[in-house]
């Protein structure tokens, strides 16, 4: 007999080898292709922004947990690391470092730890950080170093607007889509990522690879990303078909901006998304609708971040009303 006592515990006595840490690191792995693309496009700047965001997120988590909350420090679980990466991916590559640090503090300190830490936060921490920066420093947050110039020179970065920004501005000044179309990158360029924008939302291809990896690894299910993208496509498609001169086509909407990053990585954040599949679909439809409304009729060119945060607030409600069907409960004859 071994010297250690026999363990008693309640069933089950076996456990799957999935851990929350592994889930977090799987998401990190899935973000690698997008990061490589941004490195190619923005060069060292992308690396600096990401590194600063990661380090400050981890540091703030450590400091707050150790000295303010006086609880166990959990920086090893990968969630702060992930928040850092996602925050960086939502920032323009030219952002001053001190702003990134502030964004990290808001993301970790306010959006995550003040709610009680991992699992208790209502809003996606990275997005809270991003939106905080966006409303506090709107100028810096919308200065997008353009892709080609920045590839070689970082110091005097030439800034340009994102495709969505160009469209919004153009439409405001009464241009039609056909004239604007010449100013924005082609669909193929959008797909590959040779455009202006946040670090992580460059390449649709890289994000798709990451998203597929997550679905294959069963970290996320298809429900949120697919529903969200399809709804967006349908909504913008309707507008486009009604008036193609006033509204951009669905493909541009899906491939540009934060739609793909949001669909695969931000909206699917386990903590801030619903727990049932029915709920996920409702959640994703909500995000898509709000995004499209903001993009087409709002003041901002891009609305994915706001849409996700708004729907985050509805998650508890969704969880309450969209429950899985209990086994054996009678199939109700619905009142029509």
């Amino acid at each position, binding site marked *: 007999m071994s010297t250690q006592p*026999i363990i008693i515990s*309640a069933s089950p006595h076996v*456990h799957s080898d*999935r851990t929350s840490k592994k889930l977090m690191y799987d998401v990190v792995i899935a973000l690698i292709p997008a990061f490589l693309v941004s490195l190619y496009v923005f060069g060292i700047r992308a690396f600096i922004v990401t590194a600063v965001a990661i380090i400050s997120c981890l540091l703030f988590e450590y400091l707050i947990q150790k000295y303010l909350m006086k609880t166990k420090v959990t920086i090893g679980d990968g969630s702060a690391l992930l928040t850092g990466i996602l925050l960086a991916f939502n920032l323009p590559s030219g952002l001053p470092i001190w702003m990134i640090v502030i964004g990290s503090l808001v993301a970790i300190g306010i959006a995550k730890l003040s709610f009680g830490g991992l*699992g*208790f936060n209502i809003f996606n921490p990275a997005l809270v950080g991003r939106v905080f920066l966006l409303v506090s420093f709107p100028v810096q947050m919308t200065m997008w170093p353009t892709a080609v110039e920045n590839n070689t020179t970082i110091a005097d970065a030439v800034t340009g607007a994102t495709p969505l920004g160009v469209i919004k501005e153009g439409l405001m000044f009464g241009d039609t889509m056909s004239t604007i179309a010449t100013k924005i990158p082609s669909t193929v360029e959008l797909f590959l990522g040779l455009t202006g924008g946040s670090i992580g939302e460059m390449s649709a291809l890289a994000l798709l690879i990451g998203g597929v990896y997550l679905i294959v690894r069963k970290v996320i299910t298809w429900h949120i990303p697919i529903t969200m993208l399809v709804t967006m496509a349908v909504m913008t498609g309707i507008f486009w078909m009604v008036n193609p001169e006033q509204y951009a086509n669905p493909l541009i909407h899906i491939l540009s901006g934060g739609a793909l990053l949001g669909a695969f990585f931000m909206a699917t954040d386990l903590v801030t998304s619903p727990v049932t599949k029915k709920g996920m679909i409702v959640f994703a439809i909500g995000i898509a609708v709000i995004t499209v409304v903001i993009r087409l009729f709002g003041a901002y060119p891009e609305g994915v971040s706001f849409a996700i945060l708004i729907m985050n607030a509805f998650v508890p409600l969704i969880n309450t009303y969209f429950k*899985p069907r*209990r*086994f054996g409960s009678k199939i109700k004859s619905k009142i029509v």
Partner: protein
Amino acid sequence: MLKTFPKGGIHPPENKITAEKRIRRMTVPKVVYVPIAQHIGIPSEIIVEKKDKVEIGQVIAKSGGFVSSNIHSPVAGIVTKLDMIIDTSGYKKQCIVIRTDVKNESNFEEKDYPLKSQIDMAPKAILQRISDFGIVGLGGATFPSHVKLNVKEGVKLDCLLINGVECEPYLTADHRLMLEKADEIVVGIKILLVALNINKAIIGIENNKKDAIKLFKELTKNESNIQVAALQVKYPQGGEKQLVKAILGREVPKNGLPLDVGVIVHNVGTIFAIYEAVQYNKPLTERVVTVTGKKLENPSNFWVKIGTPITDLVTEVGGLPEGTRKLVNGGPMMGKAIKNTDVPVTKGTSGILVISEEEASRGEAKNCIRCGECVFVCPMGLEPHLLMNLTEKGFYEKASNEDIMTCIECGSCSYVCPSHRPLLDYIRFGKNIVKKLQTAKN
């Protein structure tokens, strides 16, 4: 496409290492410890006294009520004492200790009964026999069989399901029994069909037991009223409600029984016990037990007398290996961890699982990350994370409204939880409290 139940379920590693091992007969132990609470329901009442001489198969404790069962002596010998010993519940319970009479030959006869397929008994008599001979569900739940078979007048019953699923990892007792006693099981099914006066029986077997499926298909080729259903491998398909849904597509209502949709489910082990009781007057005094574990020298399947201390079984397979940290009575998903090997085999012991260091420890419980995995896998459509939360905080009323009582305690939620949260521990606790509150209300 093979059939299965639609909602939830998991695929734990099967680890059926004893699937190829023939069932061996365990040597008769010198002393047997027969607990009086071996089944769900009221414990039996002891009717022997210290120093009484008992014969093999003699009733030593009689049924204590309707939901109860007789207990028969597994050996011929002398009652040495009526004592309290730790049983699988972890608490000391009443039990009858019988010293085997080594001179009595009936103890050591290894009868190989020939197949007897002629059914002579009347339905009523068969049911009475099942009740008298202490037959309980041998799948693990140990629900007295006669209660299940007691179909009231006017209740529509049209199908008998035979549970040969054995969805628990590691266990192979039912699988081996199906391979080695197939003919007897078919006769057993026919006996039940006669007793219940119906003409449809379906044997459900998971697809990881292809040999058993083939064998039964072969045997029932000319039996118009017995079918074989091959099922996808998915845990917890052996649960009654899941099995009914998988095979027949009928959904047992909430808080209901399979009988509510015209079905009775019995385990293959139970069917074999019924066969022996009806055809050979043999009460339930032994069962098949899988003794298994990755580190064991010679994991095997045994015919074991009820009341044999688990120590004997473990010795038979080569002793406890170095670094054993957990002993489980039953399968890894629903079995109970036991304190030591002094615990005896009871009617519900389908396996003994010896778990080593690496597998034994539970991970540290972390915060719920609301990934919803427990919700996806719950075969009953519950929200385990919510139920745990409610129970932990003491909102039993709310937990009850969230259908905590319909939980079948399959453990799928705890199995998948990436944060290693003790979901089922709390749900089970919550169920206990809710049950108490409900009885207090009535």
